């Protein structure tokens, strides 16, 4: 009876909502119960954008994630705001190219990945989010080319099919770093 609650947070424009959507779709293709809830409103423009994703073997109750098992922080304000909310024993993924400080908590597992730098080094400056997703799947299990492909095809519209390959590549970079 596993339930994983994810909180993705960063600046508007970093693909926070998209990466959450990808994980929700991945859950859906694996017959899990899922929910995805974005922050909406003025905070999206310039401040922190976030989204709550729940992937579960049982029906999802509240879709609001206030105590995440997994936090993805893609900017400093997000880490400052949500670090303390992570469950003890949880996991935090930090984009270390944008966040200089270390995580203070000692009761969580932390993965630092310079996602934004890796993205620009690999000529995919908008895909730092998917590099982190690759890292998440690698660290937490669930990374297989097949499942990732299936979910990508759901989340990327047919019109943008040319984006499939580069998203896949971004996740591979994340998984190997």
């Amino acid at each position, binding site marked *: 009876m596993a339930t994983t609650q994810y909180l993705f947070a960063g600046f508007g424009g970093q693909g926070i909502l998209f990466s959450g959507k990808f994980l929700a779709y991945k859950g859906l293709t694996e017959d899990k119960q899922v929910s*995805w809830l974005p922050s909406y*409103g003025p905070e999206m423009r310039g401040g922190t954008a976030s989204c709550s994703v729940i992937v579960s073997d049982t029906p999802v109750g509240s879709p609001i994630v206030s105590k995440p098992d997994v936090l993805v922080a893609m900017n400093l304000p997000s880490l400052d705001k949500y670090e303390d909310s992570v469950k003890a024993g949880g996991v935090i993924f930090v984009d270390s190219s944008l966040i200089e400080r270390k995580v203070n908590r000692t009761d969580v597992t932390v993965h630092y990945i310079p996602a934004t730098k890796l993205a620009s080094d690999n000529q995919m400056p908008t895909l730092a989010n998917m590099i982190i997703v690759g890292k998440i799947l690698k660290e937490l299990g669930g990374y297989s080319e097949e499942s990732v492909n299936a979910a990508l095809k759901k989340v990327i519209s047919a019109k943008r099919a040319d984006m499939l390959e580069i998203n896949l590549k971004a996740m591979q970079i994340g998984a190997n770093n």
Partner: protein
Amino acid sequence: MADKVLMKGNEAIAEAAIIAGCRHYFGYPITPQTEIAAYMAKRMPKIGGCFLQAESEIAAINMVYGVASTGLRVMTSSSSPGISLKGEGLSYLAGADLPSLIVNVQRGGPGLGGIQPSQSDYFQATKAGGHGDFRMLVLAPASVQEMADLTVKGFELADKYRMTSMILADGTMGQMMEPVALDYDVKPMPEKPWATTGTKMEREHNIVNSLFLQPDALEKSNLERYDRYSYIEENEVMYEEYMMDDAEICIAAFGIASRVAKNAIVEARKQGIKVGMIRPITLWPFPTKVFEKAAEKAHTFISVELSMGQMLEDVKLATKCKGEYVLCNRVGGMIPSPEEVLAAIEKANGGAK
């Protein structure tokens, strides 16, 4: 069976309306329901439908009145302040016995309020949508699937009873994505011999109107309407009972509040607390008898709401004030946490163990 797709609640409402045969949408943008209008703007032109962004909410509801008069399925959507503007039109729709679907994705109030989720339009939806004696069928979805299901159902009920169905959702329901299967066997629309579709010189004129200057005629129309309402109260109540079999503490909650409450009930049950929930799906007609029956076993009713206790009044009425009553609420766009609900349950059970 259709494949499940991830959709926002707002989009699910729009697509379900189209599946139900709605080809006329009139609206005016307001957060957090604008995705409905955006979806309609995209889809309607492709299927020969009409999307029109009106100059105001008032214009939109009167366009609904116009299309409803012709017997076609029609809808508008808005959020709290916009629904207040539509109040006059809701009353006219009722006075003219016109079927329509109105969506309210609620936000915090009063006034312009905020844009975060709320349930504080409960009174307005269930008791006072506008002036005069009238009711609306009020449907309260608690998942994206229900956003779609109740939209289809809402159109069917509206046609069946010649009245307005209102979907009473909130910002969370509108914005969240969940898997949804849009798989409907939509019933054919009933005959509408009253519709103003042109006489073709073959019948008397149909007149759609809410003006009755003779008081006895107006009284008669009111009484007839209330006969219909009585029938609906007997036959159209929808609700979900969750772990109610042995419940000594009964939570009342709808929409997003019921989702939060479910988490708290699961935790409380682990402590052995006998707690369950009645989730009204129709807020009008209210599941009065279900609550009345629950009061035979339950000593305490906890109403979990995103309002100052608007539904709690109906719970007290239904249970004839026999029990203890607790309001567990947040307002203004805030949502109670499962921990807050759990604390209320523990307190009702005689304190934390």
